[in-house]
């Protein structure tokens, strides 16, 4: 084998990391178009807006790379948000709603995983089922009304700042990203997730416990949703039964824009982070420019298609 020294191939680096380039270019362009965009207050806003979707995207990333799909996280955010609100009225230390929320997330994720791994249900169907059922559960638990009256301390969780500038939400996001990135890239488990997504049959023949991996990734994804639900309640000061509706779409979008293939087996964590940031930057930029939210949806859709087209064509595997 020719031993090439690890020379930096700029051209293929650009191709692979196109999304980073697009992101940087976009930020520059938006700053130039509107001076309001680059103001610290606005950038802080962007970070805050990205945090919850970002956390959800990190969880979704595991599922999609493993070859699966999770439609239920929006509902999980809703249910866990209500449970957190009910436990966050000031009677117990905040650690309780936090942990309970994540544990319920794990439970729902476990159910998804078992249905898919042992019940052989297609992920789309299984998570569609849990998505619907859990939204119903949210309504049942809350009696159809938002749960109000959360404690001062709880409200601070999502609204405080650290070092006089960086919002707590951004810190939580960064922590989740670091953990997710580490697990995905540095652990045996992470490698096996990629293997399952690349070819489940090959992974199985190679001695990987595919069912266990499947259950694990859905549990991780839903745990992130549980955490996100806890944070959302703090951010909005209520536990609303409709909270989190269609959040799964943004999470999937972040992954797709970030280069995670829906077929599984490929994708980088930093792509997903940029994908999540990109969504917020675009929304924020359009806001600052005064574009209506209806148009924003159209533009978002176009961006998804363009991002994937660019990705598929640049891969150049077949031609």
């Amino acid at each position, binding site marked *: 084998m020719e031993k090439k020294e690890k020379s930096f191939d700029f051209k293929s680096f650009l191709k692979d990391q196109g999304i980073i380039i697009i992101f940087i270019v976009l930020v520059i362009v938006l700053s130039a178009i509107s001076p309001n965009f680059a103001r610290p207050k606005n950038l802080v806003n962007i970070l805050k807006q990205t945090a919850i979707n970002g956390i959800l995207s990190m969880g979704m990333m595991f599922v999609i790379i493993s070859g699966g799909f999770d439609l239920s996280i929006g509902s999980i955010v809703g249910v866990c948000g209500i449970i957190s609100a009910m436990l966050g009225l000031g009677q117990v230390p905040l650690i309780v709603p936090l942990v309970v929320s994540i544990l319920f997330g794990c439970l729902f994720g476990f159910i998804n995983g078992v249905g898919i791994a042992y019940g052989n249900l297609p992920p789309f169907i299984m998570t569609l089922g849990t998505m619907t059922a859990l939204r119903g559960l949210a309504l049942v638990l809350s009696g159809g009304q938002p749960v109000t009256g959360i404690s001062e301390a709880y409200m601070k969780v999502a609204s405080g700042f650290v070092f006089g500038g960086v919002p707590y939400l951004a810190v939580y996001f960064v922590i989740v990203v670091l953990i997710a990135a580490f697990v995905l890239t540095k652990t045996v488990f992470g490698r*096996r997730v990629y*293997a399952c997504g690349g070819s489940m049959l090959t992974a199985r023949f190679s001695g990987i416990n595919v069912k266990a991996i499947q259950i694990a990734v859905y549990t991780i994804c839903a745990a992130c949703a549980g955490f996100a639900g806890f944070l959302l309640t703090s951010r909005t000061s209520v536990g609303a039964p409709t909270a989190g509706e269609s959040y799964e779409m943004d999470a999937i979008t972040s992954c797709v824009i970030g280069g995670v293939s829906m077929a599984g087996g490929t994708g980088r964590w930093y792509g997903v982070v940029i994908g999540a940031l990109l969504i917020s930057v675009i929304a924020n930029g359009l806001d600052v420019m005064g574009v209506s939210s209806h148009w924003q949806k159209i533009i978002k859709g176009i961006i998804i298609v363009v991002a994937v087209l660019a990705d598929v064509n640049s891969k150049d595997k077949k031609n």
Partner: protein
Amino acid sequence: MEYILEMKHISKNFPGVKALDDVSLQIVPGEVHALMGENGAGKSTLMKILMGIYTSDSGEILLNGKPYKARNPREAMDNGISMIHQELSPIVDMPVYENIFVGREIRKNGIVDKNAEIEETRRLLEDLGMHVSPNDLLRNLSVAQCQLIEIIKAISINAKVIIMDEPTAAITDKEVDILFSHIKKLAAGGVAIIYISHRMEEIFQISDRITVLRDGTRINTDEAANLNRDKLITMMVGREITDIYPKMEATIGDVVFEAKNISRKGLVKDVSFQLRTGEILGLSGLIGAGRSELLEGIFGVSKLERGEIFIHGKKVNIHSPKDAIKAGLALVTEDRKNSGLNLVGTIASNITMVSIADLSKNSIVNDGKIRKVSDEYIDKMKIKTPSRDQVVGNLSGGNQQKVVIAKWLLSNPEIIFLDEPTRGIDVGAKRDIYLLIGELVKSGKAVIVVSSEIPELMGICDRIMIMAEGNLTGIVERAEFSQEKIMSYASTISV
């Protein structure tokens, strides 16, 4: 001589690989033209350019004297060029008649005329002597049958040039004879066949002329009558190869593996055998005899109805591949693309898939070790690649197979099952694999090789077991190897 097809000075580059370098090919109507060369020589690439799947970087193609360029396979088919791929991709949940007419359905009054399609399909199936109904789902057919249906598809398009890429890789000798009679019929009717295969006997049986490619260039084109096996091999490999089936000396020791009464409902019936260290045990039989099913059952991939496994005399319980690996077994499957490889993964990630836990500490992977070990095996097994980070899907068949074998060798098994390890692989790489098997048993391992090529088994094995319809019908020692004996055991019909 009027050429029906002329490919002139075709060149094609892929990132890091020069696949074709100024290759020219002339095809005469009504001839069977064999295209030979090692894996990676450029045969498939050249044909894919003809089919519009790839575009050439330079050069031109003339069809019936007129410039030709297909932008996709549909255009190629409309121009009368059709291809049967090496890698089958039938639509498994569609019935046979729909598969044959997919993309060019017979219409009546604007609606698909199902009855016409079914009738035509029935006629074609009968013509080919196939005991398949037009309504059968491809999911329920064997690989061999699926392949013949691909061939029927190409025939029914009334193509003027049919490209067949390894069409006999997974079909029995009887079916090959049927295929060849049809090829001869087609050729007599003026259709040109471009025939890609590694099987020398067949090439000389069926082709009029042979073109050899090597490393992306055309080495020679000549009448088949002017060539022989040795000349071809020398052209393909660039050097002389003396023995096709190298057999190395190895001491055969004690029984290391014993299987008793292995049964799987309808597939494997009460099979028992022993395997010794240093031994290469062949497993022969017709397609559908249950060979792969036997090994998959032992390996824990599929549940056994009954059966016991002993390793070093101790009973082992294998309920999953993980158990099998722990017990020191390895299984290189027949279908590397689906169950041997992660095609979107890198060479490094594929090679380390089984042993990843050994290359890590406290569940944290040691990337340095992974790089080292991957490079080691790439070197050791002569895998042709610019780097360990090459995506496996881009490698040639032979190199892909080497990656699969490397993956299993890394797990340091004592007993290795190889299911059709040289299928679809060129002469040079085949020999590498035979030598590798020889070295494995020399170092004290035990190997079972499943193969449909009896000469191959007779060349490298110490003993050969034969299965028929799920039963173990015979075991032959090396001193008594004979093709007739093995074939007769393979065709034993149970009473």
